[in-house]
């Protein structure tokens, strides 16, 4: 699995709703809420799918910006078909 962690910044009135909606996405877990920032991880098979998920979140109502913090992609077979 490609593992990435992100901070999702929201408009304050939307923080709760966005945090509640996030676990509905495939591979997404919420790990905490700091003010209007939500800490999440995305676990998907490839970097591309991980990006798609992050990108989708960035277009949600109430989401201001999505920051990528950490990304590990040693399991992405589209990059490393023979592993690392």
């Amino acid at each position, binding site marked *: 699995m490609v593992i990435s962690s992100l901070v999702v910044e929201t408009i304050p009135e939307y923080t709760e709703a966005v945090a509640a909606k996030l676990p509905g996405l495939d591979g997404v877990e919420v790990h905490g809420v700091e003010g209007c920032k*939500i800490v999440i991880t995305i676990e998907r098979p490839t970097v591309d799918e991980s990006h798609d998920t992050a990108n989708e979140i960035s277009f949600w109502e109430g989401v201001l910006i999505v920051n990528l913090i950490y990304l590990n*992609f040693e*399991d992405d077979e589209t990059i490393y078909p023979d592993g690392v």
Partner: protein
Amino acid sequence: MSMDITRRNFVKSTAIAMATAAAAGSVAGMVGCAPRVNEPINGDSTTKTLAVCRFCGCGCGVIVEVRNNKVVSVYGDPENDSNRGLNCVKGYYLSKILYAEDRLTKPLIREDNSLKGTDEGFREATWTEALDLVAEKLRETWKADKSRLAFWGSGQQPIVEGYAQAKFWKAGLLSNNIDPNARLCMASAVVGFMNVFQTDEPAGCYADIDDADVFITWGANMAEAHPMLYSRVMTRKISNPDVKHYDVTTLGTRTSATADKVIMFGNNGDLAITNCIAHYLIENETYDKQFVADHLQFKSGTENIGNAYEDGYDKSEIGQAVDATQSITFEEYAERLKPYTYEYASQISGASVEDIQELYELFANPNIKITSFWTMGVNQHNRGTWVNHNLHNIHLLSGHYCKPGDGGFSLTGQPSACGTAREVGTFCHRLPADLVVANEAHRRFSEAVWNLPEGYLDEIKTPGFHTTKIFRELSNGNIDFLWTAHNNWAQSMSNLTRFLGRGAEDKRGIFDAFIVVSEVYPTISTKYANVVLPAAMWVEREGQFGNGERRTAVFEKAVDPPGDAMWDLWMLMEIAKRVLNGETIDGEDAFDRLFGQWYDKDAGEFKFGTQREVCSSIWEEYRTFSNPTLNERAAAINTEKKLKMEGKQLAPYEEYIYNHGMTWPVREVDGKWLPTKWRFSYGPQEEGYDQIGIEMYGDKGLRKDISFYKSADHRPSVVFRPWEPPAEIPDDEYPFVLCTGRLLEHWHTGSMTRRVPALNTALPEALLDMNAADMEELGIKDGDRVKVISRWGECEITASSAGRTKPREKYLFAPFFAEETLINLVQQEMYCPLSKEPDYKKTCVRIEKVGA
């Protein structure tokens, strides 16, 4: 093989810990997460190296983790003060861009010029054959007629690579026909800074965002072009609901969508709006009187400067006069501003009287902190230098300058537009460290650092061809040898119809010239190449970038380049040694005199075992420009000619690694090197103020504890710059105003980002964004193919009212990342007569439905 459960748990818990710390904004809590030296983590073979993002001018620090010579993870560097652990979503592709299938891994040679413009006709070659050929052609042109060769560089070249390239071109070939692609994005900002402050630097830094009460974006789509900084703006706004953001723009963007107030204008109205603000600051006596008395001088300049339509514009009478200024009194300046009433500014710009007045009231309020950001909308402008002047003018008159949260900041576009292009001397009129070829003392100083005989550089006292001039002369058949590196001119230049030889019969020199392209992937520019040199990319070698806030940061070599791809610096040495073969300087072998301290030409290798040592050694020479005491001859000239070269002092190389980047000037205090964040502002150096610089050269006790010690008479110049119209005005034949620019997903003409499937899915096609009313009037539906036609050329594109930007009626936007669309076929080639930066923002066009 997938990660085992132990490693997976380790990776995931690291990911969560880092994101939690970043969300809390607690950098302190994350110290220790980033390495100072390579060290294995988790008991396995993973190593961490320091790096800087490859994409935009934000210059975010990242840490790269490698296993078995492969990059396996990246994360925001919490100890890099520019981004403090954050990256934008482009970070997903930082490493993936290394691994697309069509990486260039072999030198390519093409003999048949008739196949230019296609991918055909190339054969693989050895390095020896490719280097011999390039050097032979360069030497042949050099010996026959030096005016017929040129190098076009990049704000993506690392600092020491750009520095060595500039040294080869200026001191080795004695040619000024070298210019960077930063001419296309930053030149107006440079000339603005030089004219106003006599130094090319912003007063403030990214940390201003955390203190500002008001943000004003002028011609800047920060949300897409500078995502990390925009995230910081958002964080500031959320932390204090009273903080407001005004977006002054010609176009609705993602940045406008989150602004508190959007002020739309057109018709070069930015010049009128800024003059209007200045007018009322004086008229209502709301300017900062002590600031003006202590700090400013006033000037007027040449006006009615026309437009640079003709190839010979620069040498025309008006073209020669555009830089001239004269001192005027404050009263005379005030008099010139008088016509700029709210009504007049509104009439010119289309912005409402109330909106302009609201902007004025911000500047008239001494109790708030205003941070202005501007970028391509201001710089890519037929009066780009003038708008830069006027933005500085309103910040200076109102005293909103040089203090945390309170100042003007010109955003940059490429990762090392500042550190390399602007600072190491790759412009056709410059030498390293802001020095210029036309100044005798500057030439003497450069000769001292480069160990050249006195007077050696007098041969290059006249500036060479700037970017548009290079491509104009190429098309005219007056360039025989062109070498370009890490840019994509065949896509990013204006008026491609002319420059790609698709227009007039007598403008097809591109097919005759010998063209060398150093690249990592095939681009449209490589289609026009005779030789393609495959380069090591990003962390496949060690390098350094200098970002928008003038933070110099090192990226370490993490992995080897693929195939036969090589370090640009090695290619440069190998070409230089061949071209300079048999030449002497002062009786000594010319190559050895310039590069012998780093490179053994007979062995064909660097004299140091590691790239770290090579970079560090070149850096030490470059650093002498800003540390003249390292060189006795240079130090004497610095003192005698009062050059103040320490103004942009750089630290020893290793300091940048230990400190995860530092903003210049960097000062040594009690054996510790400390950065400067608020230039010209007095205060403790430890807190980022310009203490040492002001104590060395400045004055104390002036308004706001500021001293503009690098400016002539320590007084920046407020130059009156009037409103003058765009180069083209919409008419019945060409009723639309076309703006081109960047969008989030694609960077650097898409040469890297379009190779990433997900980025391509997110933004697969360059759309022409149109207003729905215009589409209805022309009978165009979303998804219809249309022709965009200008006086310069035409191209086909898909129209949309649902694109990323939201143009008003009669305005259009198209991004320039798509090779298959090539929107710049229709762009005018006019540039700002002062900065020579093209105007990409307002070519007049008409739209025709294809097949209608």
